[in-house]
């Protein structure tokens, strides 16, 4: 299989990860490097399907592969997934800001409750 020599774009990574099965593969690889057979077993999918998904993930650089003896070992490449991480992180930050303000409101409500000893 010829390797596709082109730079993976952010959009590619997003598309690659949009597929639920591919996300399962990434999850399975989060714990460390694994051979294909292991993934086939963990996901309960047929080998050709797993290989197809792995190819897409390789093309965007989300996983890397190396041969060891007769085995092909796959591992995550966190760097390629960073744009997705950033995307969610920014949204997460807007919620963190809200919740920090909510903490202050709650602190006040707690003090008020302790102060008057009744719950209205």
């Amino acid at each position, binding site marked *: 299989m010829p390797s596709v020599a082109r730079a993976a774009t952010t959009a590619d990574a997003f598309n690659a990860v949009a597929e639920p099965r591919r996300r399962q593969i990434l999850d399975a690889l989060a714990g460390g490097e694994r051979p294909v057979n292991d993934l086939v077993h963990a996901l309960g999918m047929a080998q050709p399907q797993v290989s197809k998904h792995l190819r897409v993930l390789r093309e965007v650089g989300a996983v890397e592969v190396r041969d060891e003896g007769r085995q092909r070992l796959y591992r995550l490449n*966190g760097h390629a997934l960073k744009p997705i991480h950033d995307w969610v992180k920014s949204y997460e930050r807007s919620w963190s800001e809200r919740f920090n303000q909510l903490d202050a409101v709650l602190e006040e409500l*707690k003090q008020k409750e302790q102060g008057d000893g009744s719950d209205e």
Partner: protein
Amino acid sequence: MAVTSSGTAKVTLPADDQILITREFDAPRDLVFKAWTTPELVARWWAGDRGKVTRIDIDLRVGGAWRYVMEASDGGFEVAFHGEYREIVPSERLVTTEVFEGMPDAAAVDTLTLTEQDGRTQLSLLVQHTCKEHRDAHIESGMEDGMQEAMDALEQVAVSLR
């Protein structure tokens, strides 16, 4: 006044059309519910650091409407959301529809769940969109609001990935 933060919000994407936001609070859940559903209190936290709340309407009954409006601090434009209450279990669970008025076709269903242990509350907010495109747009809209802090955020991410 120093306020101890109970940590940061955690956002995950459990499915293509979902967003899950979780956070722990150092307060019992009846207070969290109160702060979540009382207009004067919502007005104090909902805009975060991104602007000023200009209107909070809450008609807390099944079928009742809600509408939140804020004025973004960068540019002064208004950002408004509205929806309808579908299920209300005080202090435990709140199901509402949610529409960002800048994207009126993308209605989501939000499920707020509060569980309490030892006086602390675990909050989970599941945002269920009808498709991946709307879900993605929702996350991106949050990103635009925060453009002014984007550089800081990126820096933090970069550090965390090291």
